[in-house]
């Protein structure tokens, strides 16, 4: 199926699609099927082998799960869209390209340029076409692939935010989303007694899933105080469905005898070859651990995460503008029709600010209408506004307090890839004058490893005393050198 990069894939007769969608999670999937319904020729590229993204991640057919919906909320919304995807695929309106990890999007076409605004000095108008470069398939058989499109929707979702603590590199300490992902796709658990910790609504869903799948969950340890929601009453009242969902999580935790500790954090994980226990401490309003409140809780796994971080490198690589989000992350600036600041590039879902699957689907549908030049209808516009208001309320409530670095001892690893401890990063900031994550990287290698700062980025920024900067990664995944060597000169 994939062709050489010098001959971009021909998803439909003519070789050029109206819209290329990057990511087949809730936003991208909703956008692709809506755009196809509105008459556009669509290519849907996704790194995974099945549609659904992380939220609707589900077991491979060979695992024979009779009730995949048991691990999900709102499965019907996915099932109908997946059915639509298959129908549009059969009809030739959507070219669905699973196992295609897009590593760069570049302007092309008659006025294609490499400038950040999509125009070259002295040239008229923005780029008219875009080339999406992807690595297709699994090693060692991975192939280079490319798709050319008139418009691009970036629906690359998010990854989990981590705030390091001593012992977080021990085997058995996993991301909360990581534990959820492994359960949803592989039907496996990291241990029998799994503590869930961090901050954000995902923790409740993760604890519920783990307990339903047979794990003992001694507690959910939430750093924020749920009283922070009290200041957000209007947004909550506009979203009764979300309150019902929260009540459902609460009921599930009660049924499985899971304790909820708010304003607490795991400040250390203990063990030699794997985690055996954690220290949990009470936090003050700024998330500083309070002396004398530490206690030890035995567990054989810890699922930890502090919300999500929009995955923006494809967008920032194109020059799309970003903005700070209420949760302390960076998101894309988008208009009412989901347009980024770069003409021809739309985005939907978590990239515009973390807001969950329902919002992502609404935004995907809005973006598809915009690309097709069709009015979206007032209901969809209202739905997006309502869900976005709720997302902003949640984001503000779970923004990490500045005192969290109080549990980060100097010997604690911050950058997992390059094994850089907090003390070295503090030295770079305090003694050597580093004021941002980039300078810290140059001095300590933190953020220079395989994950390119995805795991340590928020922590390094905090230690350097800056707000997190937008993702900048020239390649969004490992690309074989031979793929780069084979690129035609025009796209360099």
């Amino acid at each position: 199926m994939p062709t050489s990069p010098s001959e971009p894939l021909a998803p439909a007769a003519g070789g050029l699609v109206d819209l290329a969608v990057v990511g087949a999670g809730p936003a991208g999937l909703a956008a692709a099927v809506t755009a196809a319904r509105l008459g556009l020729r669509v290519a849907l590229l996704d790194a995974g082998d099945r549609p659904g993204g992380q939220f609707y991640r589900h077991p491979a057919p060979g695992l024979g799960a009779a009730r995949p919906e048991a691990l999900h909320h709102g499965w019907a919304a996915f099932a109908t869209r997946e059915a639509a995807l298959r129908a549009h695929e059969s009809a030739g309106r959507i070219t669905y390209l699973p196992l295609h990890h897009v590593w760069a999007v570049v302007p092309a076409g008659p006025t294609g340029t490499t400038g950040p605004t999509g125009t070259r000095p002295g040239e008229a108008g923005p780029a008219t076409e875009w080339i999406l470069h992807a690595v297709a398939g699994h090693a060692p058989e991975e192939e280079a692939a490319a798709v050319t499109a008139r418009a691009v929707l970036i629906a690359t979702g998010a990854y989990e935010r981590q705030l390091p603590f001593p012992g977080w590199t021990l085997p058995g300490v996993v991301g909360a989303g990581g534990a959820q992902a492994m359960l949803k796709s592989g039907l496996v658990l990291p241990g029998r007694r799994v503590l869930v910790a961090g901050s954000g609504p995902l923790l409740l869903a993760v604890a519920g899933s783990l307990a339903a799948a047979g794990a003992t969950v001694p507690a959910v340890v939430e750093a924020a105080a749920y009283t922070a929601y009290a200041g957000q009453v209007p947004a909550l009242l506009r979203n009764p469905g979300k309150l019902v969902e929260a009540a459902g999580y609460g009921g599930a935790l009660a049924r499985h005898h899971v304790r909820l500790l708010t304003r607490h954090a795991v400040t250390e994980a203990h063990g030699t070859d794997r985690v055996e226990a954690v220290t949990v401490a009470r936090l003050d309003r700024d998330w500083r651990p309070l002396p004398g409140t530490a206690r030890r809780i035995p567990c054989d796994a810890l699922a930890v995460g502090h919300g999500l971080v929009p995955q923006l490198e494809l967008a920032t690589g194109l020059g799309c503008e970003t903005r700070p989000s209420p949760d302390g992350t960076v998101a894309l600036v988008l208009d009412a029709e989901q347009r980024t600041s770069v003409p021809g590039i739309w985005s939907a879902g978590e990239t515009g600010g973390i807001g969950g699957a329902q919002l992502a689907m609404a935004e995907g549908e809005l973006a598809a209408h915009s690309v097709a030049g069709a009015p979206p209808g007032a209901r969809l516009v209202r739905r997006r506004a309502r869900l976005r208001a709720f997302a902003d309320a949640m984001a503000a409530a779970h923004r990490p307090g500045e005192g969290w670095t109080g549990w980060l001892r100097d010997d604690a690893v911050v950058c997992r890839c390059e094994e850089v401890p907090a003390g070295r990063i503090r030295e770079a900031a305090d003694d050597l004058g580093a004021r941002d994550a980039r300078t810290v990287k140059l001095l300590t290698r933190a953020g220079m490893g395989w994950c390119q700062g995805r795991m340590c980025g928020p922590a390094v920024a905090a230690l350097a005393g800056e707000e997190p900067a937008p993702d900048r990664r020239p390649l969004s995944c490992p690309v074989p050198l031979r793929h780069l060597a084979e690129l035609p000169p025009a796209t360099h």
Partner: protein
Amino acid sequence: MRSPRSLVGGSPAAAHEITFDGRELPALPGQSIAAVLWGAGILAWRTTREGGAPRGAFCGIGSCYDCLVTVNGRPNQRACLVPARPGDSVTTQEGTGRADLAV
């Protein structure tokens, strides 16, 4: 006794086997290498370059690269993304997994 399987019901197609450091492990069709290892109670399959510390799956979605492992002699494969194929030989990755290049 609740389990992931009791939650989703059904039954898998025929199981197969992979080996980890020579030990045979049962694998279900469609599971990633990381899932097969977790299913066998194995949480670490790499040691770090500097400290020689054990690591396994962390983010579960291909973002963190902590779960790198050697598969059929090829190092640096993300265990959480690579599907386990019948007869795969998975081995603990020491550091970069490129000791053969050491000078």
